[in-house]
């Protein structure tokens, strides 16, 4: 009873003005005396689900679970229930391995600096946001803005990724075994993106550095306003109209060997 009251009080506190502070406050809470130390990640998630109606539940709950995991670390598994999207799962992780069974919400694995987040399902927007290290593996699809502002670490997506993957990416590596949507590597300045199959329009738009490789079909307006970096696409797309470029390099390869 006491515990649920304190959960409610925590979930109802006003959201902090930035994400680091929000995480710090969640971490403070899971480290406080009133928090039941015998809980497991799964118990905690299920207990939190009864507060679904609280404003910003998806964000608060995600931070809560991430803070709890950061405190415990090790290898842990969380089985999600389908009906409620939870954001920020596995964010701010520095070590340990978190396995999520089900579809994660927005900002999964954001601010990751080490450890591994393994997602059995799909992820929504901004997975790996501001990530600096560690590894994220997504078994399903990743929605828009995968690896937004990513600076290090590695993301592997087994199926497709949607638009703006590697948006403003500075470092690290994104690998996709399927296809990518629009604006791959938009404003990217460093790091590596590898797409096994197709990538649609606006690859490398306003790109300033880093490397993008697309092994399958490509869409229109390749490298529009590109000023640096290297984009490698299949030789057979040599005649596909390009955008206006100011620098950087487009390599046409037959991907043999």
């Amino acid at each position, binding site marked *: 009873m006491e515990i649920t009251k304190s959960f409610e009080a925590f979930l109802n506190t006003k959201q902090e003005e930035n994400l680091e502070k929000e995480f710090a406050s969640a971490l403070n809470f899971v480290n406080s005396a009133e928090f039941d130390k015998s809980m497991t990640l799964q118990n905690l998630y299920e207990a939190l689900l009864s507060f679904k109606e609280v404003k910003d539940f998806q964000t608060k709950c995600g931070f809560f679970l991430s803070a709890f995991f950061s405190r415990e670390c090790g290898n842990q598994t969380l089985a999600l229930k389908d009906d409620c999207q939870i954001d920020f799962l596995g964010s701010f992780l520095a070590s340990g391995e978190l396995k999520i069974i089900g579809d994660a919400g927005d900002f999964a694995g954001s601010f990751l600096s080490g450890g591994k987040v393994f997602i059995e399902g799909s992820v929504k927007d901004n997975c790996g946001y501001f990530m600096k290290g560690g590894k994220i593996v997504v078994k399903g699809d990743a929605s*828009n*803005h995968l690896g937004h502002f990513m600076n290090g670490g590695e993301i592997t997506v087994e199926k*497709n990724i*949607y638009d703006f993957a590697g948006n403003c990416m500075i470092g690290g590596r994104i690998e996709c*075994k399927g296809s990518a*949507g629009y604006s791959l590597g938009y404003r990217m300045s460093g790091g590596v993106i590898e797409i096994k199959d*197709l990538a649609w329009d606006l690859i490398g738009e306003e790109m300033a550095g880093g490397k993008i490789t697309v092994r399958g*079909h490509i869409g229109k307006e390749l490298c529009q306003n590109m000023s640096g970096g290297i984009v490698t696409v299949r030789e057979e797309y040599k005649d596909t109209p390009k955008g*206006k470029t100011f620098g950087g390099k487009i390599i046409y390869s037959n991907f043999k060997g």
Partner: protein
Amino acid sequence: MQEKIDIVKLGGVEEGKPKKPRPKLPRKEIACQDPKERIKNFNEVALGYTPEEAVYEAMRCLECQRPRCVVACPVHIDIPTFVGLIARGKFAEAAKDIRKYNSLPAVCGRVCPQENLCEAACILNDTNPGNPIAIGRLERFSADYLLSKENGSAEAPKITHKTPYKVAIIGSGPSGLTCAAKLAQMGHTVHLFEALHKAGGVMMYGIPEFRLPKEIVQKEINYVKSLGVKVETNCIVGKTIPMDEIMNEYDAVYIGSGAGFPNMMKIPGENLGGIYSANEFLTRVNLMRAYDFPKTATPIRKPKRGVVVGAGFTAFDVVRIMLRLGAEHAEIVYRRTRKEMPGRGEEIEHSEEEGAIIRELTNPVRFIGDENGFVKAVEVQKMELGEPDSSGRRKPIPVPNSNFIIETDLVVIAIGQTPNVLIPSNLKGLSTRWGSVINVNRETYMTTVPKVFAGGDAITGAATVILAIRAATEASRAIDTFLRDPQRKWYPPEVSEKK
């Protein structure tokens, strides 16, 4: 009540049983009205699939694990899922699934340039060239099926959580309607303001009945209304209601005012009688039903020999309308070649079947009037193609001493539209480019004015329905985030040109 569908009889697969895809079969063509017949009426040209045809086509789909079509769709509709539902006889469920991503499936199924999007990415292009799954036709089939079952009164999803926030949407084209629908589903109170007497934007006043029946558009609008969106027509924001009033009364504003201001040629003789902008011509015919004059109140000049300048969606619609108005000769005059034409392949083909003439590498230099001030001819010049310009298309260059005359009694200028300056000039601090195209943040669709968002043709210039829907979908999410916490600083506040 859902009618019982005998899916095995239709050639499909029962639910729960494994599907054996038939990708090697040719793509099912869609039945169309005969060209000789259809130029005598304004009824829809493409007649749509029958249930058997739809199931045949759906059975060709491999339902790939890593579907390329989904990434190429600007709103990432879960195409294999809805096609799979059709193959299993769940036609209404298929349309409901599409509606999760796109509130206007019956419209997009008809007017989206699928041949450059989802269908271009379909994996069957590799193994069975020229025979990708007819995704657009299947989308249309399931959406029409659902609309016919809903019979105009859509069963809207229940909105469980109502928020205290009010959002004003300016413009009821595809972007305004989509943003309104999404925000209403998120529980916000949405008021939509439309300048014209009917909602729908270009879908109502621009795209002709024979390509997009207005009854279908109206049903899609009814669905949006059924979500609780209040639509106020005959209301020009910036004139009927001052922009300040909107800014004071609402927690957020979305500008979806489109690109309704026509570009003109700026050559001698352009203000002669019998020369229309495409917007005026199309509004008279589509919205005011001038083809039925005098039964309707709006007249239109019926041509004998019509000339349309331009070769986009609009130009092809205009030339086909000219033929339906009784023109003996109707031609498109275009300064580049067929290869560079922005119009859809299917429209070009349908226009030619109906008798339209396409004159490539030709550009008007002046219009010549008769003694009554009406156009009687257009002087044109031959062109040749040079190096590609910034749009990636080869630049047309005039050929010296190549001018000649084309006789005509009706000219329509269809060389593109730009957004109207009314809203930018009424909203202090709104950053624009080229005078009226609104600049927005690439991620949040917020303009330089706090709490004001924008999408659709208003931020890109004339584009497509699906891009307008995509902008609205993304903007609605950003608006929701903003409303719940206006201080949220997750996104960089930089503003850039939106593609």
